C-alpha cells in the first residue's frame, strides 16, 4: 500500500508491497448485502435475485462491537479516497457485488443490463436511503459520477469513470472544461439511469462492484458542503458515521438502522489508527484490537502466534517480475524463459510466506473468473537445468544484473531470494538487488525506463475481471498509466483484450482473455511469480471473518 495506499497498505497485506500506499486502493472489499444467495455467473445483464435482506438476515446484535486497525486516512469521500478504503467499504453499498469466486450479484442495483455492451441501463432497488434519510435515486449516482469525473475537482478516483462518454469533455487536455456533466449519463426516472460507454465493455457490471469507490452515490446534502462530506461521508451502506473525523482520532461507525440491505451483524465498528503495522500486530497479540492486516514480514510469526485466527484470503492480486525489455539482453524470449525457470517459487513461498502464497501459473489471479490454470506452462515451472540450457542457447549472459524494487515495503527478502536463485541457477555471477528510497522514486525510474534489470511489478485488481489485470499490464494507458506494468505490450495481446472487452457474453469474453494469455505465455514479456493473499489476524472475540476478494466484509463480521 498507500504504495500510498494506506489503506490497504496498512492492511498490509500485500505480500508484495504492501505499503500503505501501494495497497491503497488496491484490493477489493466487502460491503455486500446479498452475498449468500443468488449466484448467477458473472454475467452482465443478469438481473439478480432477491437481495436485500434475504436468507440469513438476522439483524444487528445490540451493543456488539469490534476494533479494526487502520492508518490515518486522508480523504474519506469515496470519490477522492486513496487510503480510506475500508471505512468507505463499510459505509457504502456498491451497485453490484462480487464474491471471491467471481460471482456477481446485484447489491444496490436491481439490474444492470445491456444488449450491445455499450449502453447500459442500471435500475436501482427502491426504498433505499442515505444515512441522512435522503432517498437514493438515479440522480444521486449521476451527480456523484459527474463530480468525481470533473477534472478541476482532481478527485483521485476520477479514472474509474474514464470509459463513460463525455469524460473527456470534463477532462480536456488543456484549459478548463466547458461542461460539468458527462453526456453519457442520462436519468430515466427515480430508479433508472443509462450509461453510455465510449467503447463496448462487457465487464462493466463487474466495474460497478465494491472496490470501485469512485462509482458510489452521493446525496444532495454532500454538495452543499463538500469539506464536511469529506470528513463525514453520508453513505448508503450498512454503517454510518455519526461524527466528523478528526486527525488521528478513531473512526467509529454504527449500524444504520434504516439500511435497506442485510443489516450489519455487529453494531459498532471502530477503526483505530496505527502508524506502524507491526505495532498493530503487537497490540493484537495483547488483545487490544480485533482485526489486523498482516504484512509480509509477520506471516511466519502469525502462523504460530495466532494459529487458526490467521485468515488467509484469496485476493485479486498478482506479483510479477518485470523485465527491462528496452535492454537488448532481454529481447530474446529464451533469456526471459531462463530467468523464469531459474526461480524456485515453491521454496521462496515456504521461506518467505510460510507457504501461504500460491506460485503463479498464469497472468491473472485465480479470483478473476475464467483465469486459465497453468497458462504459463513449463515457463513458470522450476527447472534449473532447462533454464541454463535456454540461456546458453540464447548466447549466454554478459555483464551484471541488478534487480530493482521499492524500499520500505518489506520486500527485501523476496527480491534477495530472486537474486540468489538467478545467480545460482543461471550462473550469472554478479546479480544484485537495489531498493529505491520509496515508491515515488521507483515509479519515476520505472516510467522513465531507467531500470537496468528485472524489477518489482504487481497488481491488485479493483474488480475481479481478467480485463483489469491484463489491461493494466499490457495495454498502453490501459490502467491509466504504467507505473509497474509490462514493458513489452504485444499488439496481438491488445487486440485480443479489445475483442474480449466487446463481448456481452462472459463465456465468450473469457475465451478471448484466455487466448491473450496463451500469446503472453509464448512471448513471456513479464514473469508471473505469485498469486497474492490478503492476510488478517483476529482476537478471540471475532467469531466469523467473512471476506470477499481478499478483504473482510465488515457488515458480516460477528463477535462473541
Amino acid at each position, binding site marked *: 500500500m498507500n504504495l500510498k495506499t494506506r489503506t490497504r497498505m496498512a492492511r498490509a497485506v500485500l505480500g508484495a508491497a504492501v505499503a500503505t500506499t501501494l495497497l491503497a486502493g*488496491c484490493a477489493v472489499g466487502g460491503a455486500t448485502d446479498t452475498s449468500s444467495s443468488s449466484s448467477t455467473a458473472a454475467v452482465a445483464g443478469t438481473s439478480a435475485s432477491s437481495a436485500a435482506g434475504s436468507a440469513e438476515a438476522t439483524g444487528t446484535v445490540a451493543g456488539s462491537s469490534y476494533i479494526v486497525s487502520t492508518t490515518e486516512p486522508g480523504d474519506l469521500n469515496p470519490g477522492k479516497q486513496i487510503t480510506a478504503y475500508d471505512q468507505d467499504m463499510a459505509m457504502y453499498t456498491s451497485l453490484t457485488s462480487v464474491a471471491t469466486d467471481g460471482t456477481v450479484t446485484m447489491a444496490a442495483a436491481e439490474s444492470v443490463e445491456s444488449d450491445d455492451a455499450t449502453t447500459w441501463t442500471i435500475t436501482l432497488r427502491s426504498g433505499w436511503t442515505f444515512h441522512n434519510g435522503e432517498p437514493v435515486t438515479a440522480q444521486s449516482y449521476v451527480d456523484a459520477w459527474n463530480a468525481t469525473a470533473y477534472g478541476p475537482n482532481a478527485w483521485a478516483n*476520477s479514472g474509474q469513470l*474514464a470509459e463513460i462518454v463525455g469524460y473527456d469533455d470534463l477532462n480536456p487536455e488543456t484549459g478548463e472544461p466547458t461542461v460539468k456533466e458527462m453526456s453519457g449519463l442520462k436519468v430515466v426516472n427515480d430508479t433508472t439511469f443509462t450509461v453510455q460507454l465510449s467503447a463496448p465493455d462487457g465487464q462493466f457490471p463487474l466495474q460497478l462492484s465494491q472496490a470501485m469507490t469512485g462509482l458510489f452515490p452521493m446525496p444532495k446534502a454532500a454538495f452543499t458542503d463538500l469539506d464536511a462530506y469529506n470528513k463525514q461521508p453520508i453513505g448508503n451502506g450498512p454503517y454510518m458515521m455519526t461524527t466528523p473525523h478528526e486527525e488521528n482520532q478513531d473512526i467509529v461507525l454504527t449500524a444504520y438502522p434504516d439500511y435497506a440491505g442485510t443489516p450489519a451483524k455487529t453494531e459498532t465498528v471502530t477503526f483505530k489508527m496505527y*502508524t506502524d503495522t507491526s505495532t498493530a500486530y503487537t497490540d493484537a497479540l495483547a488483545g*487490544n484490537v480485533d482485526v489486523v492486516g498482516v504484512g509480509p514480514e509477520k506471516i511466519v510469526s502469525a502462523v504460530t502466534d495466532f494459529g487458526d485466527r490467521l485468515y488467509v484470503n484469496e485476493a485479486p492480486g498478482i506479483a510479477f517480475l518485470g523485465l527491462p525489455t528496452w535492454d537488448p539482453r532481454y529481447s530474446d524470449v529464451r533469456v526471459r524463459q531462463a530467468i523464469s525457470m531459474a526461480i524456485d517459487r515453491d521454496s521462496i513461498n515456504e521461506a518467505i510466506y510460510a507457504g501461504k502464497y500460491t506460485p503463479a501459473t498464469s497472468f491473472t489471479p485465480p479470483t478473476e473468473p475464467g483465469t486459465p490454470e497453468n497458462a504459463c506452462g513449463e515457463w513458470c515451472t522450476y527447472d534449473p537445468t532447462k533454464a541454463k540450457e535456454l540461456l546458453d542457447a540464447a548466447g549466454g549472459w554478459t555483464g551484471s544484473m541488478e534487480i530493482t524494487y521499492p524500499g520500505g515495503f518489506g520486500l527485501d527478502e523476496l527480491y534477495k531470494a530472486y537474486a540468489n536463485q538467478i545467480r545460482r541457477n543461471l550462473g550469472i555471477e554478479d546479480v544484485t538487488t537495489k531498493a529505491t528510497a*520509496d515508491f515515488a*522514486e521507483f*515509479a519515476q525510474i520505472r516510467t522513465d525506463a531507467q531500470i537496468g534489470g528485472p524489477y518489482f511489478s504487481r497488481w491488485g485488481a479493483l474488480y475481479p475481471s481478467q480485463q483489469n489485470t491484463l489491461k493494466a499490464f499490457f495495454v498502453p494507458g490501459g490502467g491509466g498509466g504504467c507505473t509497474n506494468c509490462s514493458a513489452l505490450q504485444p499488439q496481438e495481446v491488445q487486440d485480443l483484450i479489445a475483442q474480449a472487452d466487446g463481448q456481452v457474453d462472459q463465456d465468450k469474453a473469457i475465451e478471448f482473455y484466455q487466448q491473450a494469455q496463451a500469446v503472453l505465455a509464448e512471448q513471456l514479456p513479464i514473469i508471473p511469480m505469485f498469486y497474492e493473499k490478503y492476510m488478517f489476524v483476529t482476537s478471540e472475540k471475532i467469531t466469523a471473518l467473512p471476506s470477499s476478494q481478499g478483504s473482510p466484509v465488515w457488515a458480516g463480521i460477528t463477535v462473541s
Partner: protein
Amino acid sequence: MTRFVLRRLLELLVVFIGVTFVIYALVFALKGDPIASLAGDRPLPATVVATLRARYHLDDPLISQYWRWLTGVFRGDLGTDFTGRSVSERMASRWPTTIVLALTAWVLEVVIGAGLGLISGLRQGGTIDRAVLLGTIVISSIPIFVVAVTSQLLLGVNWGWVPVAGTQEGWPVAFLLPAACLAVFGLAAVSRLMRGSVIDSVRSDYVRTLWAKGLSERRVVGVHVLRNAGIPVLTFAAIDLGYLLGGAIIVEGIFNMPGIGQLLFSAIRNHEGPVVVGVSTALVIIFLVISALVDIANSLLDPRIRRD
C-alpha cells in the same frame, strides 16, 4: 543587554531561513513526483495529476516555491498537504501528545539522571558508581527501537503491566513506558554530566571549607554541591527538551502515540513533502527558541558570555 538579545534573535532568523531552505530543497529534490505517487501503483489520471500540480505550484522553480512557502509561514500558514488538509491543523491535534510525552521523558531524565549522577559522584570509585557508569554505557549503546520493542513485548504483551500502544489510558499509565524509552539517552548524559560536576564541586575549596565548618552532609550536598553542580546539568537539560520534542519519531511510531513525531514518520514514508517541511520547521523553531532562551538566560547569569 538589549543589543545582545536583538543580535541573538537576528541570528535565529538567519539560521531559521537557512535550515528551512535546506529542508525544503532536500524534500523537493527527492526523486519521484509526489502527486503521481499519491495513489501508489495505481496511476492517477493525467488531468488529475496536472490539476494537483498546478494547485500546489509544483512546477514552479524551487526558489519561488520556497518564497511562497516562507511568506506563508510569516503569515502563520504552513501550507497544506497534497489532499488539501492544513499542515498546521494536522499538527495542532498532535502537539499535546508530544508535549506530554516529552515532558514526562524530561522529568524522568532529569530526576533519575541527576539522582544517579549525584550518588555516583559522591561515591566516586565505589560499587554504585561503577554500576551506574557501566549501566549508562550499556543502555545508551542499544538502539532505541530495540529498547522500545523489547520493553513493549515484555511489559505490555507478556506481563500486561502497561498498555502496548496508544494513549487511550491517559497519563501517566500510557506514557510511562514510551517516555522511559525516550529518556534513556538523555538520562545517561545527565547522569554523567551530574557526576562530573559533583566530583568537581566536592573537590573544590569551598566544599572542603564547609565540611571543615562541620556542616551536615545533607546541608553540604543538598544546598551547596547540588546548587553549583546543577547549573551545567540544567543548561543541558533545557536544550535536551528541544531534542525530546523532536526526537520522539521512533518512539511515537512504535508505541502508536498520535504525536508530532508520528506525523513526521508517516509523512516521510508517504512522501508528503509539505507535512515533512512543516513539521521539521516547527521543530527547528522550537529548538532555536529554546537554545536562544538558554543563551539569554546564561548571559543574564554570567555577564562574561555577553561580551564576546
